[in-house]
């Protein structure tokens, strides 16, 4: 029987020769990820249901990445990182990317040292969805579940990856299994090549606008076609990341040589290698929807407040005045996102308050190492007036505690490289959030209103990557 990529992975991990959309299956989980916001609750359910002395099903398959509410004086948030540390110690979990180095210490953010300078130790990894691949925990053909809706990001590596709640995660912790209903698959064929000024973010904002922001609810989004090959790993992650913004259960790309090279290099670097087998979709598989997206026809695109499906091309946005710009998060806080941002603002000055939060400490290091005409990308961003913090994390993408860096504490209009623009998403309930690519956010930060970044593109990019 012909199967889609998602069906094939679920069949394999359910120990069945075939599954079809709608089948409920009990699936073996390869990796369970949790973080500081949902980890303590997951641990609470795990202990309540399996007993205080219960052991997780496989300590090496539980990956714990504090990243949400870290650089805040909120006492409960600091405590939640300590709850994770204690559990990790009891269970002997090797992959815990703690904020501090001392395994028996307590985490306390020191506001007096300021928010810009790094306050984490050597183990801290930053935003979970970027840290997972960076540390070598994403592999083709696997099943990854995480207590965060943007877990779908890892579909960029040819695996089934989806977000779940605490109770489901506790069930996985105890049994290594999850009950899943096989989703019907929607296929998106990417053809052609993106024009200068257009980024992966524009692809996914275009697609969500096309199908509506509940257009993929309960479904798998499978991206294929000859347009995928030239896309970087970062680009694929950006697209898969926002699958959930169309309601999707998962978003997935077929793994290619680029994927495998990336995965193997990260696993070798961090000693996290595990054998894996790539999976390909069958010819003649059943797709409930088929859309061809001509990448060469895409334009810089914006999702207007208050939902990610309210698509408008940037050039048609008219004069939408802005108070703030933000670059960061699992969607738009990668090195390539900041480099694109720097392409636009290099040598210029932003006209509105602009905040930059790299997703991971590794990205902070790369931005400080990469050079443009002898200056680091980090310094180029600072010179342009961007407020940068070394304290990598989810920060203001989801608002967070009131002292969170970049949080909107008044009803401001903000253009952002992040993923959601619902009322209150970045803090104040009256805030208006516009989602766009790093290019569009950068150009709009220079202009003070939403603009098409193609009028701001530099001629030639003079970037030498050093030590990246």
């Amino acid at each position: 029987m012909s199967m889609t990529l998602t069906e094939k992975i679920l069949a394999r991990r359910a120990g069945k020769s075939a599954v079809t959309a709608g089948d409920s299956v009990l699936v073996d989980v390869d990796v369970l990820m949790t973080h500081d916001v949902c980890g303590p609750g997951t641990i609470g359910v795990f202990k309540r249901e399996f007993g205080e002395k219960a052991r997780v099903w496989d300590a090496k398959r539980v990956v714990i990445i504090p990243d949400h509410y870290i650089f805040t004086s909120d006492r409960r948030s600091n405590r939640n990182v300590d709850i994770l540390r204690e559990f990790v110690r009891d269970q002997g979990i090797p992959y815990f990317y703690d904020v501090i180095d001392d395994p028996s210490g307590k985490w306390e953010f020191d506001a007096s040292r300021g928010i810009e300078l790094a306050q984490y130790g050597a183990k801290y990894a930053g935003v979970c969805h970027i840290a997972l691949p960076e540390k070598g925990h994403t592999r083709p053909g696997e099943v990854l579940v995480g207590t965060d809706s943007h877990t779908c990001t890892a579909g960029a590596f040819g695996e089934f990856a989806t977000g779940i709640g605490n109770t489901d995660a506790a069930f996985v912790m105890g049994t290594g299994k999850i009950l899943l209903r096989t989703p019907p698959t929607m296929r998106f064929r990417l053809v052609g090549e993106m024009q200068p000024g257009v980024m992966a973010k524009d692809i996914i904002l275009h697609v969500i606008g096309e199908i509506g922001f509940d257009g993929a609810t309960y479904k798998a989004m499978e991206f294929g076609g000859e347009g995928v090959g030239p896309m970087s790993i970062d680009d694929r992650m950006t697209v898969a990341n926002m699958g959930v913004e169309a309601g999707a259960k998962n978003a997935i790309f077929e793994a290619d040589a680029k994927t495998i090279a990336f995965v193997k290099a990260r696993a070798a670097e961090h000693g996290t290698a595990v054998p894996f087998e790539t999976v390909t979709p069958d010819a003649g598989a059943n797709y409930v929807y088929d859309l061809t997206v001509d990448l060469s026809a895409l334009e810089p695109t914006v999702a207007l407040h208050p939902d990610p499906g309210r698509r408008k091309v940037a050039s048609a946005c008219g004069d939408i005045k802005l108070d703030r710009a933000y670059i960061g998060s699992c969607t738009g806080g990668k090195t390539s996102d900041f480099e694109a941002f720097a392409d636009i603002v290099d040598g210029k000055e932003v006209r509105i308050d602009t905040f930059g939060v790299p997703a991971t400490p590794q990205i902070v290091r790369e931005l400080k190492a990469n050079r443009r005409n002898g200056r680091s990308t980090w310094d180029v961003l600072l010179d342009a007036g961007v407020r940068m913090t070394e304290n990598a994390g989810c920060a203001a993408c989801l608002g967070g505690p009131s002292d969170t860096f970049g949080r909107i504490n008044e009803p401001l209009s903000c253009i952002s490289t992040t993923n959601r623009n619902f009322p209150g998403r970045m803090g104040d309930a009256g805030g208006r959030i516009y989602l766009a690519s790093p290019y569009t956010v950068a150009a709009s930060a220079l202009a003070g209103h939403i603009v098409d970044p193609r009028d701001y593109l530099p001629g030639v990019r003079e970037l030498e990557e050093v030590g990246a």
Partner: protein
Amino acid sequence: MSTVIRGKAYVVGDNIDTDQIIPAQYLALVPTIEEEYRKLGTYALCGLPVEEYPTRLTENEKVPCPYNIIIAGRNFGCGSSREHAPIALGAAGVEIVIAESFARIFFRNCIATGELYPADCPERLCEVFKTGDALEIDLDALTVKRAADGASHALNPLGEVKTVVAAGGLFAYARETGLVPERSAAS
């Protein structure tokens, strides 16, 4: 939970996301800590814009709130995977959400926690009912009636959702069906 639910409705529109159900600044509250579970209830739906929703689900952070039934439009619970969302509603005293459609993770979290029934309906009931209407919902007959006029509206079949929520959530159901061992054998 009984399969007939009587009480007052709180009516919301389309695309009520998890940030409106429980704003992110309250996510540091851990739902399995009893005091924090109760606190989550006091904030349920406090992210709804005040201009659009001048009547609040919980007034002065008082729980249980006067409404045990939520009536919603499309895509209720979209956004994050935070289990705090169904838990906040459950802790506020909500027993059921009836919506035209649900976002997947929220729907699943309602069932897994057993906090409340997620029921969908063929009609756009958020334009039929008003906040404060007294309703009677029969989960066996799959009907929802307004006490004032007795007009009856249909719910879609709940299937296994009803069995799992009635059992008390995923773990209770898993024990009944042998997916996980009985509690005495577990610890």
